């Protein structure tokens, strides 16, 4: 099932994309799995996700923890910690 991935801020800049559509393999079950899988897609992705402690995620409009299952997700956003307004 394809998932739309949105990137923001420094993660967007490192990857060079603000969004992409991916179809992860079935063993990618959680947000943490997804980030690990995405990190292997290229040098930009690897750089973007080098510091896993600084990656935050949202599934749809809800913030998600690294161990949140991604089953059924249509849109997942990955970004650094928000800095507020």
């Amino acid at each position, binding site marked *: 099932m394809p998932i739309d991935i949105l990137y*923001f*801020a420094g993660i967007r800049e490192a990857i060079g994309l603000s969004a992409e559509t991916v179809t992860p393999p079935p063993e990618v079950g959680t947000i943490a799995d997804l980030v690990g899988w995405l990190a292997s897609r290229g040098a930009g992705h690897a750089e973007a996700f080098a510091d896993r402690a600084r990656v935050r995620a*949202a599934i749809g409009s809800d913030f998600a923890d690294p161990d949140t299952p991604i089953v059924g997700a249509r849109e997942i956003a990955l*970004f650094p910690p*928000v*800095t*507020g307004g």
Partner: protein
Amino acid sequence: MSADFHIRVDTADIDIGGELARLEALGGGGVASFTGVVRGGGGLTALELEHHPGITLAMMTSIAEQAAARWPLLGVTAIHRHGRLVPGDRIVLVAAASPHRAAALEATAFLIDWLKTRAPFWKKEHFADGASHWVEARAADDEAAARWSMKG
């Protein structure tokens, strides 16, 4: 008390007088506000604000509803700008109307603490020497917002 919410994220400047007049017209008697303005200094030439369009409004609306559940408010306004801003530009307005001045002021403090710390924005600073960097989340701001979740 059912509150009138006015929540917006856009690139346009904020008409403070017009926004506060709308809250005054609700008849509560008191309107508190906080306006944030981009600060210069240190060679800062511009601030670039990015946000997650799919979740920002939902989260801002949710926090406004929390404020209206906690204090007797007639109206809540929260407007945040995104895009490129320069020192002196308004960046955020939060305001609350209430029959009780303490309620209006406390709700405004609650909303701005949340917006400044938890709202899903990222800020990039641009400097006169050409350098730029993404602003890191600040622990002090998190503590200011955390005070509210410990209350009530």
